[in-house]
């Protein structure tokens, strides 16, 4: 009995120290989440405004299909970019992304499309390698914990050049789309060709932001087009790369925020779980201790009785 109490005490100690670690990780993730969330929110207005500008240019009768970015070709080869985290301990976050990524990949292969698979994040790279899914490129150090707009330049080059050269016919990104602090579902987003309807919101969740641009649209509808300087075409020339870069930046920012959110939730669950375990173990320990005392008492009394 004395043995059992000792074993339980040891376990309590180990569970409490695990709890301390998960609690700390929860708080760290919470702090990082706040910063990451801020980043997601403040990258939004720029993207929405770029989208609004694009819409305005489109509404002014500029034939956007002249730009290769909008060109819809029959898809023979597809570039798929799967984003995961570099670190684990964040619940099903990475698993869900990999599952969606693999599903997308298999669907394309089944449809007779060749896929160039790019994987970001240590966890995704490892999982895909383990499952025997071939990747053409992997990025680990390029995935920053605190992405800056300039970090998106690298990915913009890698993702858009094959499309513009005609090597691939579409670019699809699988990433955790930050809708709000309660929902970040893994999402497959078609980055290129830019769909003309995606400019009006829809998949990107820019719908709520269109209010501010509504007057501009109305005026265009009335036939009063704004002046363009130097020209609508030249502005679109400059705008498209910026639009793609900002889209990629917001994807990176959303991925980081979602990861921190998933980690905080996972660590909160772990902490609560540890708490419960400690409560149960303490109860068991007290029981064992009590049993031992009772046993010792019984022995003493038994001994005393025997002496009579």
């Amino acid at each position, binding site marked *: 009995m004395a043995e059992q109490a000792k074993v339980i005490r040891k376990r309590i100690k180990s569970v409490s120290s695990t709890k301390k670690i998960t609690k700390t990780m929860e708080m760290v993730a919470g702090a990082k989440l706040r910063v990451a969330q801020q*980043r997601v929110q*403040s*990258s939004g*207005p*720029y993207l929405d*405004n*770029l989208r*609004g*500008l694009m819409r*305005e*240019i489109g509404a002014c009768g500029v034939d956007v299909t002249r730009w290769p970015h909008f060109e819809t070709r029959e898809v023979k080869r597809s570039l798929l970019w799967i984003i995961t985290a570099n670190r684990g301990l964040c619940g099903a976050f990475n698993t869900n992304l990999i599952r969606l990524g693999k599903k997308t990949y298999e669907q394309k292969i089944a449809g007779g499309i060749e896929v160039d698979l790019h994987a970001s994040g240590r966890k995704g790279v490892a999982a895909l390698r383990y499952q025997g899914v071939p990747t053409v490129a992997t990025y680990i150090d390029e995935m920053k914990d605190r992405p*800056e*707009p300039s970090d998106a330049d690298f990915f913009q080059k890698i993702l858009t050049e094959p499309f513009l050269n005609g090597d691939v016919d579409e670019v699809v990104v699988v990433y955790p789309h930050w809708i709000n602090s309660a929902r970040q579902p893994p999402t497959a987003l078609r980055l290129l060709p830019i769909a003309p309807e995606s400019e009006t919101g829809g998949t990107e969740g820019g719908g709520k932001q269109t209010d*501010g641009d509504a*007057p*501009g649209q109305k*005026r265009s509808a009335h036939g*009063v*087009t*704004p*002046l*363009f*300087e*130097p020209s*609508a075409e*030249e*502005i679109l020339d*400059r*705008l498209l790369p*910026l639009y793609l*870069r*900002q889209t990629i*930046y917001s994807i990176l920012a959303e991925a980081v925020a979602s990861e921190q959110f998933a980690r905080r939730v996972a660590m909160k669950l772990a902490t609560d779980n540890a708490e419960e375990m400690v409560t149960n173990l303490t109860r068991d320990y007290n029981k064992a201790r009590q049993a031992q005392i009772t046993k010792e008492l019984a022995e003493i009394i038994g001994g005393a009785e025997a002496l009579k």
Partner: protein
Amino acid sequence: MLDVVVVSPARPVYEGRAKGLRVPSAEGQLGIQPKHADLVAALGVGELKIEREDGKTDAFAVWGGFLKVGGTKVTVLVDRAEKAAEIDKAAVQKELEETKKALRAPKSDESYTQLMEQRAWCQSRIRVADSRL
């Protein structure tokens, strides 16, 4: 009065009412006053000056982006923006010297254009930093 919003890729930079503003467009300085015709313009490198309602002026060094005027609403999308307090003048001065040195022997036409923009970016940051005084 104009409602002015300035945003950069990383964050909103400025939001408020203004009497007018001056922006460096790709083809030269542009002044925007109330009742300006609707306009969309590409921006170059230079200083963005916003004359606030209270008569004070806010200055930013900006590089690239777009200007959109629609009625009384003015939206400035800038690729980079720095205000006086954020500029480390000594560091910029050093950067400017290096750019000037590189400009004496540019490798290609492309890098020449880049360096020229870099130089203008340094110079406008220095001017903005000085304008605080």
